[in-house]
């Protein structure tokens, strides 16, 4: 264990702030291996990633918003609304091509993100409130529209993306997850990404350096909206029509990001660590499920572990650094 941790520590230094989450992930994956020897067979491991994919994608989107100094509480509602709206749409146009519907959902997610971003930046409403309001609006609107439940079924072609496999063995969801991961990693190394983090760190400094702060922050929300819509497509594919597809996902996504060592308030943390946080959370769910922890106590265990993990992360990165500050700046 200690060698593993040492290796991780080295890796963690390179990866920035996420070190504890990688340790957590390794511990959880090891525990899974012990509990379930078959876990690492290609099929079941791929199934695990496939299952984690929506949360990982949501975490990547949520990361963009959190690192720029905000919250996005509306992602769960976007997932629910996306699934229900897709079904409703198929109810009216059963033969619509899946590409079109998927693209439409992503565009709608982008619009929701755009609205979140504009309200937050232009009207100066704290994002917590904006997205809380958006959550109520989306849930209300989509059910008002559908009269409470969607009136269509999702065809297999549409669902294949979340349910099917490429080449008979590699789930599309895993590919989507990898693609989003790579895109997010690339994005955060790009000029936009660096500017985004700097904006989250100090909005004034960024604005005075020529950063179009409202635009950058709005784009972060837009990214989160698109990620949520993509998650909606995957969830819809994975499990079909449900009126509560996205319930609680916003909290899971935020928890995942925070587990990844990203600081609420912005300016610090890596997107890879945030996605590792999502994998950790999913691994924890799976482990609790396999352990046969009584269903009822599951959430208690989850609560303890999240607090403990974040607490240990905070001990590492908050306290020690703060103590250290005065040494060099007089």
């Amino acid at each position: 264990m200690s060698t593993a941790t040492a290796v991780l520590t080295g890796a963690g230094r390179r990866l920035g702030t996420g070190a504890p989450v990688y340790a957590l992930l390794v511990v959880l994956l090891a525990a899974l291996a012990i509990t379930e020897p078959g876990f690492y067979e290609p099929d079941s491991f791929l199934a695990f990633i496939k299952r984690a994919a929506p949360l990982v994608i949501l975490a990547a989107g949520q990361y963009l918003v959190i690192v720029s100094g905000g919250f996005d509480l509306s992602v769960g509602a976007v997932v629910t609304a996306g699934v229900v709206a897709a079904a409703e749409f198929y109810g009216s146009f059963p033969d619509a091509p899946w590409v079109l519907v998927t693209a439409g959902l992503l565009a709608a997610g982008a619009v929701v993100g755009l609205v979140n971003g504009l309200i937050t930046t232009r009207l100066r409403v704290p994002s917590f409130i904006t997205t809380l309001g958006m959550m109520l609006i989306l849930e209300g609107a989509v059910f008002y529209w559908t009269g409470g439940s969607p009136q269509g079924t999702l065809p297999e072609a549409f669902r294949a993306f979340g349910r099917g496999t490429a080449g008979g063995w590699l789930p599309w969801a895993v590919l989507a997850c990898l693609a989003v991961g790579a895109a997010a990693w690339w994005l955060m190394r790009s000029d936009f990404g660096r500017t985004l983090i700097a904006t989250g760190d100090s909005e004034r400094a960024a604005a005075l350096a020529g950063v179009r702060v409202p635009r950058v922050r709005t784009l972060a929300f837009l990214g989160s909206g698109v990620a949520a819509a993509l998650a909606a497509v995957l969830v819809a594919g994975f499990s079909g029509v449900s009126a509560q597809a996205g319930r609680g996902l916003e909290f899971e996504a935020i928890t995942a990001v925070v587990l990844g060592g990203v600081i609420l308030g912005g300016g610090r943390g890596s997107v890879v660590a945030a996605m590792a946080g999502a994998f950790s959370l999913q691994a924890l769910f799976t482990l609790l499920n396999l352990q046969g922890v009584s269903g009822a106590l599951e959430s208690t265990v989850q609560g303890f572990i999240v607090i403990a993990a974040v607490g240990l992360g905070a001990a590492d990165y908050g306290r020690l650094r703060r103590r250290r500050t005065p040494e060099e700046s007089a």
Partner: protein
Amino acid sequence: MTAIRTEAAPKPARRFTRRRRLRFNDPVVGVWLAAAAVTLLGWIVVAIDGGNLLSRTGVTGILQNSVALGLVAVGQSAVILTGSLDLSVAYLISIGTLVAAETMQDGSVFTAVLAVLGLSAAVGLANGLIVTGLKVNAFIATLGMAFILRGWIEDNYTGPAGKVPDSFQRLGYDRIGPVPVSVFLLAGVAVALWLITKRTRLGHHMYATGGDEHAARLSGVRTKRTVVAAHVLCSLCVGAAALFLAARLGAGAPWAGTEARYDLESIAAVVLGGTALAGGRGGVAGTLGGVLVLSVLDSVFNQLSVDPFFKNVVRGVVIIAAVAIYARPRRTTPRRQPA
């Protein structure tokens, strides 16, 4: 010396403007005006529809529906003022009603009240200690606490439990004229919280900690203790809400807090009342106004038989719009620039 005079000269004028601004821009005043406006508009709309929003039952209903959310939101104000947040309130309410009802079934009302408040204080203490001691962000800390409490509820209860004696149920049902007695509970708790936040050292320290924790600490404020105290206060209010709901429901209900989404609703009410989510500004008086707005809106929707899903849309719009309005004057106030 000249410089001093130049600054001193416009002084009285500036103070005058501050006082005056208090009137128009102060969110507390704003939200109460909004509540009045919503009531008036609602009354008109309902009247056109052929009803009467402000009939005896209507008024009672509005007040009655404000109590539970009001108690929670008043408590939530305390933590938000201090720069923290509590997402565990919903589950704490559920547990509170269960503990209250079960204790009252076998024991006295007095022990039950003590038990609920004791439990609440303990949960608040735990929240506070996790936030300050383990330095876990309040959002995550209290979310984690919510999960812990949820597990406890789900492991132990499978539906309503316990029984509240009729004597205690009077808290939930009696009224004096059109005013339910529980409104006096809310008023009492609100006045107590108002006194604590505005007139005690703890309250001053809460504002200071929420405004700038570092500055407060440097001034000798025990910020950690203050945050812990705010969490305990919040949980005690939640405990009071649980007792009220127990009285109202006549039994403990595992979903009493969560189905009504008291966690997010209370935050919405607090923010609607003009308290800054970042802490340090706002107060209990505004929060009550926010609760009243939500409750009047609910009542209007009820009277007009508006689709419940549509209600959510309106609520979302109202919350965003209100906060956008609060944010506006701040934008036009020129930022002081030392030149």
